[in-house]
Every structure is written in C-alpha cells, then in structure tokens.
C-alpha cells in the first residue's frame, strides 16, 4: 500500500511540483480578481440582517470618470495653456512617428497593433489629464497623483541610485562600509519611515527647525500645502528605495568586463565618453529590469501617504490604492473595486508595454 502510494506520487511528481503554486495563485489572486470584477459592477448596500448587491453595470466607472467622483479620481480640470498644448502635440507627434516606424518595419501583427493602440491612447489620455489638472486652477486627482509618484519618484530614485552606485564602484578604500550603510533604508518599514519623516520635517520642533527659522519659514506647515506634502511623501519613498536601485546597479557595474573600459581609457576617452559608449550599453538591461520592478511597486504605494498625510491636505497626496481603501472603509465596495480595477488596468498596460517595448529589445540586443 505504502509502496503504491509512493509510486503514484512519483508518477504524479511533475504535476505535484507546480500544483501548489498554481492553486495558491488561483485561490488568492485569480478568484478574488473575478469577484472584484463583479463587485466593481454592482452597488453594495447594508440592509436588515446582512447586505445586498445590486448589479449596476458600469455605473461605478462612469461615476469615477464623468460623475460625482470625477474630482476625486481624475481631478479638477483647468484650461490648458499653450505650452501644455505644445508639449501634447510634441508627444502625439512622437507616438505617431514610432507607430509609422513600426508599420514600416515589417508585417505588423494584429496583437502588436492592438497593444500599441491601447498603449498610445492611454499615454495620450493620461498626458492630457496631467496637462489639464496641473494647469493653473486645476487640481490633481488620485490617478494623477499616483502617476506623479511613479514617474517623478522612480526617475529621481533611479538617477540617485545609479549615481551612488557609480561612486561606490570606484576603487577607493572603505567601499564595504558605504555599501552596508547605503543599504540600510531598504530594511526600514514604510510605516516607520513615514513617522520618521514626520519627525524630521516638523518645522517647529524638528532637527532642522533652526534652519527654517533662519529663512523665516518657521510658521509654515508642509502638511497644509499640496506640493510640499507630495514632496515629503516622495522624499520618504525615495529614501527607502534608492538603496534597492543602488545595490543592483552596483552589482551590475562590478560585473561588467574591465577590458573595454581600460582600452577606452588608454585611448584617452573621458569618463563621460566611457560611460556612454561602453558602460551604459552593458548595464542597460539591468537598469530596465530594476526600473520595471520599481514601477510595479510604485503603483501600489499606500503606507507613506496614509501615515504621513492621511492623503491630505484634502486629497492632494492620495494614491489610487489609498483612494480604494478609503472607499472600502466607507462601505462603498463597488466604488472601491472600480478604483482598484482602474489601477490594475493602468499599471498592467504600463508594465507590460515597458516589458515588451523597452526590456525585450534591450535584452535581445545584448544577446
């Protein structure tokens, strides 16, 4: 009996190895995803002795995009100044040019065409949204705020992380020490970081208070200004995540072969020339991967804005995840699921396009 069982196990082992993972993901990701889709299409009401779900179609999404929740999700629009239109036209031109190049480059597949169409529509729509909400008189909604966290935050983190990695890859004494120190913030719980930065940014009692007084800013409160509040959230996020980019880029820099670098420097190439011509092409695939990982995580930001500013002042620092969570707390389950689905849509399109259009070409170019 026992022998038969072990024989059976051995024959089924191919499936048994992968089954637990598939079941876990089905149970806690795919199945909830389907329920969430249903929730997003219905209205949740507490009734006597329980709750009721009414199917309302796309009403929740319509409310976010055009209805009473528009200010919260998209923001308040203002007329776009001519500079904004100019930038938008430039962006549209660039997208059009890349599409033309794709069509000329060979037979276009249906999937590739549809994917590009979705991506370009989304990019243009989001650019229009940013232009209209960033213009004077406009107000950012949770979607634009999340985009800011992703675009501004990740770019700043990447530049700082790469710069630090390049400094640390020089042949100097004490590299090991700096490496450990720079790595520390990654370990700190985001909730702890939020309180830490509230303490540090306290303009009346914090460690920098004398400095603020010197500039006559002692009475100013960063938490009551939209942009300073967003800045503090982004600084906190960067403080935590720069180490991650640093450590990976450092490993990539140290892994590159030294022959070409030495040959180039013997030929009299400057540091900047070597970086652009030799180093960057070699580390670009790693850089793309690390940026993708960061973008994926940055779309989900909640702990910092929630603890630092509670999404305030008003909704100025509210990310999409926080927006969804607040809706859930007020028992608007349908609205919460709708926001979550919009987040899923935007981040999926962005991340998969980044993977297809930036990472894959880079990696196949190297291979």
């Amino acid at each position: 009996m026992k022998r038969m069982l072990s024989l059976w196990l051995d024959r089924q082992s191919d499936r048994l190895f992968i089954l637990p993972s598939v079941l876990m993901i089905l149970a806690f990701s795919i199945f909830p995803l389907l329920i969430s889709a249903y929730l997003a299409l219905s209205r949740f009401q507490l009734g006597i002795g329980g709750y009721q779900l009414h199917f309302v179609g796309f009403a929740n999404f319509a409310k976010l995009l055009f209805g009473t929740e528009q200010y919260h999700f998209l923001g308040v629009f203002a007329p776009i100044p001519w500079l904004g239109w100019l930038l938008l036209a430039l962006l549209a031109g660039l997208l059009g040019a890349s599409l033309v190049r794709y069509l000329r480059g060979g037979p276009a597949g249906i999937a590739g065409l549809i994917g590009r169409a979705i991506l370009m529509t989304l990019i243009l729509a989001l650019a229009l949204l940013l232009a209209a909400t960033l213009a004077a008189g406009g107000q950012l909604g949770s979607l634009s705020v999340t985009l800011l966290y992703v675009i501004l935050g990740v770019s700043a983190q990447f530049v700082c992380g790469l710069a630090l990695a390049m400094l640390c890859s020089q042949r100097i004494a004490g590299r090991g020490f700096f490496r450990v120190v720079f790595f520390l913030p990654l370990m700190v719980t985001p909730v702890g970081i939020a309180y830490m930065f509230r303490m540090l940014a306290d303009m009346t009692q914090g460690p920098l208070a004398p400095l603020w007084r010197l500039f006559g800013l002692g009475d100013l409160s960063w938490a009551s200004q939209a942009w300073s509040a967003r800045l503090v959230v982004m600084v906190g996020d960067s403080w935590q995540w720069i180490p991650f980019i640093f450590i990976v880029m450092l490993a990539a820099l140290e892994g590159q072969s030294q022959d070409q670098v030495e040959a180039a420097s013997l030929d009299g190439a400057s540091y900047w020339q070597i970086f652009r011509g030799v180093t960057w092409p070699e580390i670009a695939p790693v850089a793309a991967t690390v940026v993708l990982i960061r973008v994926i995580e940055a779309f989900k930001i909640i702990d910092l804005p929630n603890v630092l500013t509670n999404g305030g002042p008003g909704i100025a620092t509210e990310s999409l995840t926080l927006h969804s969570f607040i809706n859930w707390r007020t028992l608007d389950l349908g609205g919460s699921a709708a926001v979550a689905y919009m987040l899923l849509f935007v981040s999926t399109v962005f991340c998969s396009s980044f993977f297809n259009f930036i990472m894959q070409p880079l990696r196949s170019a190297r291979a």
Partner: protein
Amino acid sequence: MSKAVRRTSLFEPRRYGELAPASKIAVYGLLALWSTVVLFPLYWVAITSFKLPIDVAYPPKYLPFIDYQPSLHAWRYIFVDLGNDTFRPYMNSVIVAPLSTLLALIIGSMAAYALSRIQYRPSLGSVVTFILLLAGVVLAVALAGIDWRIATLVAFVLFFFLLRALGSRFRRRLGNGDILFWIISQRILPPVVAAIPVYVMFQKLHMLDTHAALIATYATVNLPIVVWLMYDFFVAVPKDLEESAQLDGASRFRIFIGIVLPLAKPGLIATGLLVLILAWNEYLLALFLSTAKAQTIPLLVAAQNATRGPQWWYMSVLIIIMIAPVLVITITLQKYIAKGLLLGAVKG
C-alpha cells in the same frame, strides 16, 4: 626613477587605475553626504527614544548627555506599562513573517525548479474553460444565490467532463515560458484589487483575524518574487548530478530535497531575506485582514497617531524595535542579498 614618474598635479591620478586626488576628495565628499542622509534619520529616531517630552520641544537637542539627560521612561512605558499591547502584535509579526516566508520559499522554489526542468504543455482551451467556469461560479453565487459549495462542485464535475469530451480538440498549447510569465506577472496585480474578496472569503471561512489567513495571503503575494529569483538559480545549477541520481532510481522529490536545494542555498537565503523583509513590512493586507488578535507590528505603529497624537518618544521606541530584527539579520547576511538580487535582475 620613481620620482621622475610621479606627477604633482591634483587632477592627475598617482597610479594607473586610481583616482586623481581631487576627484577622490569629491567622491568621498558625496559618499559622506549620502551617508549622512541615510544615517541621520536613524540617529534622530534613536536619540528621540531617550528624550523626555520636554526635550523634544524647540530648540532641538542633538547630543545626548550634552544637550539633554537621556531617560528610559519611553522604553519603560512601551515594555512595562503597555506590556502585552506591545508584545502581542510583535509576536504576531514574529510568527506570521517567517512562516509565510517559509511557505512561499517551499512552494515557489518547487514551481521554479519544475519550470526549469520539466516541459509543461497545458492546452489553452482547458485553461480558458477553467476560467470561464470559475466566473460562472461567481455569477451563480452572486446572482442566483446558489450555495457556493454546490456551485463549486458542479463546476468541477463540468470541468472534468468538458475536458474528457473536448480535450482532444484543444490544439493550441502553452509552454513553460507562458506559465513563468503568468506567475511573475501576478506581482503587477495591486493587492488592493484582491483585498476585499479575500476579506470576504476569510469571513465566510471564519478565518478573519487569524495567523493562517495572513500567512496564506502574504505567501501568495510574495510567491512571484520567489519563482522569479529561484528560477534563475535553478537554471544555473548543473544538471549532471541530478541525472546520475535519476539513473540510480532516486525520485524527483528526493533529488529536489537532497541535491538541488543544497546547491541553491545562496539563492534561497537571498530570496528568503528579501521576502522576509517584505512580509515583515506588509501593511495593506494586514489592514484588511487583521483587527485585534492577529494585528501585526506595522499596524500597531500606524495606529499610534490615531490614539494619542504624535508622542515622538514612544513612537521612536516602537520604530526601533520594529526595525531592529530586520537590520540585524540583514547586516549579517548582507553579502547574499546583493548576489541574489543581481542574479534575478541581470537575467530577468
């Protein structure tokens, strides 16, 4: 001879492969600046935890023993007066984070190993059928009010017979790459999308606010990372040993546990550390799934604000005890992390 070679300029390197003195100073300056940026916030938290309320007021006091007399009052309050209110969430985190990490590591590395060694060819048709039936179950339970147990049973029976009947017609097949991509792409899924249904699921099972609920969801959320990183390790592990063991008649499980896992130990440590940190710091899912009994330490810290305003001295103690274990573990195992992250990121 050597005197003639040595240059005197500040901007020329003394020896080949070294930096010029001027740029060396610049590099050290920048590194020191960033070290300050990293260390000062931690230092400030550490000294604030020893301050009396009066020492927190303006003007700021920077140096213990010189600017102010350190006091242990905050530590005493958190550990002695609050006692259980501190230890319970702490113990919850100590239980949940490592166990979920272990679960994710075991399940994830099994899948990663299998994907790197065995060819899977599930047909696209059966996957689509499965998803459609799952959606049907959701609709039937939500709209028609059918008991979920009955609906699931019917769906499974249907799935079985449909596969029997149509299985041979499904020609398009998926490969290992598709499965790998599917698992890894789960990381893109924002947890908030799944959080409410997971909440309802655990409520139906009467498992809200339990360790098991947190462990299962944390493990699932971190599973994609494990599969991604471990897949690269297993691809790199040479196959000769396994093949000779297979010829000797060892089963796949035995090979996996006895040969493959020990070889992939550095990868397991790096991945485990990363996942442990993520699980220890997790906030959103804990917010949904735990209220009192299973409350984790990030929740306790986050709740401080609501209950008694920012009392920085207590807060600092909590932050220190929250980050201390992770800091200690990471500094001791630091060299593994860089290696592990690199392998995953470089090979993608």
